[in-house]
């Protein structure tokens, strides 16, 4: 699946929800289920400090694609991380850099990626891309 197809899949999944609470129930479940990061990777250099919640991001470059693992102390942030990773994982640095993550807006969660939300997610997306940039043309 391409990144765009993965985004479309999530948008369709979210279309079935009638209200906010259902959406959040789904995100919270995602957050609870995800075994996201190796505890050893929760280090200062992997930390993205939001004003409200914190995010840790670890990335590796393997067999021409990026592999991301991440975590947060807030479960809703963690659920959204789950969605971002679902979309960006195992993709080439080139396609990650090109990606416009429109699905976040389409499913009505753009507030979480606004700089005022201060939950570390904006910093995380930026970091996912700068990490990918390191491996471009390798």
């Amino acid at each position, binding site marked *: 699946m391409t990144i765009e197809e993965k985004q479309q899949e999530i948008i369709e999944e979210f279309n079935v929800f009638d209200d906010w609470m259902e959406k959040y129930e789904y995100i919270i479940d995602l957050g609870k289920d995800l075994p996201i990061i190796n505890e050893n990777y929760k280090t200062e250099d992997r930390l993205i400090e939001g004003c*409200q919640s914190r995010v840790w991001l670890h990335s590796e470059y393997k067999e021409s694609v990026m592999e991301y693992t991440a975590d947060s102390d807030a479960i809703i942030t963690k659920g959204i991380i789950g969605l971002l990773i679902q979309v960006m994982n195992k993709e080439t640095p080139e396609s990650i850099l090109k990606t416009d993550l429109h699905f976040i807006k389409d499913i009505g969660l753009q507030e979480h990626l606004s700089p005022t939300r201060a939950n570390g997610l904006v910093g995380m997306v930026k970091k996912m891309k700068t990490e990918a940039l390191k491996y471009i043309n390798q």
Partner: protein
Amino acid sequence: MFRTIQNKLICTFGNIMTDLIKKPFNVKEIREQFPALRQKIYGKNLVYFDNGATSQKPQIVLDAINLFYSKENANIHRGVHYMSQKATTEYEASRIRIQKYLNAKKSEEIIFTKGATDSINLVASSYGELLQAGDEIIISAMEHHSNIVPWQMLCIRKGLVLRVAPINKKGELLMEEFDQLLSKKTKLVAITHISNTLGTINPVKEIIQKAHAVGAKVLIDGAQSIQHIKVDVRDLDCDFFVFSSHKVFGPTGIGVLYGKEDLLDRMPPYQGGGDMISKVTFERTTYNELPFKFEAGTPHIAGGICLGTAFEFLESLDMVAAEKHERELAKYAEDILDTFEGLHIIGEAKNKTSVVSFTVDGLHPFDLGTLLDKQGIAVRTGHHCTQPLMDFFKIPGTVRASFAFYNTKQEIDLFVEAFEKSLFMLK
């Protein structure tokens, strides 16, 4: 002679009049004056419990803002034309109204600023110039960043020492420890009247007496007090008192610094520009008198005038009954929240206002805040600009519900319902 008596009569009569026009406290009637409270958020009736961050505005203030920009807009202190004269008169009338409300001796002691933060920075910059290396400033462990960082910056600039008076786990200032920090070296005590995170009401009168006894000046951060309790700066005997208009039902972008006249007179100007000068030549400039010495440039004219309107609103209110209502709301909310397992109220001072801050074991405040928001409940989550205080309690933040007199028990019931639903979803 006759005139002073006449003035006195008018003043006394004026006071009686305002007492008479105070209506009995009635939440329903008060709510009707706040249009922002009557709206739906995500399809739910708004429950606004973020009054610590900013208050909503009564219709009378909204009308005043509209009127100023529709009909009265003009620059002040510099025009002979009708509109400029009128705007100047109203701006200065607002200053006098605030002076009377605070019971300051003179209107020259009321400086218009951008807000509490700006007022504190003004004092740090200007009063700070009078201090010398080795002098000490005392703050408390529960200060807002606005009442920490300007002093840290000043300490670095002038080689001063910043001391922090500790608190106990209930969120009360430890007075014995505070006493021990006081010495001849103490030149300023800068302390909050009421903690924005905990609701603690500090014993500022006692603090001021003790600080004065060692020759120190005292700045009271009134950002969270003036909207809840009657403030009398002469009774308190504080040297500086600061607050923001937006938390006291007025517009944003304006606030007040009260300072004792002799002290303000001794302080150098803060910023240079128009209005603050007496005469300018390239060789030498002399400064204007108080309060203009500290008000460089065109001020927030509409803000200043409409802050006066906000005080007019406050004057019409039975503040004692309003505060009683707010405390009842806080008690009602705390009694319900106390029954939840794993919930901890942060801030249990004996003397506190209508702020209820709490954490829930295993849950992040951000998650609770996000889910409450989606149910129409506006609370604040996070560190509330008091990171050192959060470090003291070893928590990343709290959920804070801060009530104003226009809130109701029914709203608390809606909040509790939404809170229970959020807990259920997160656990």
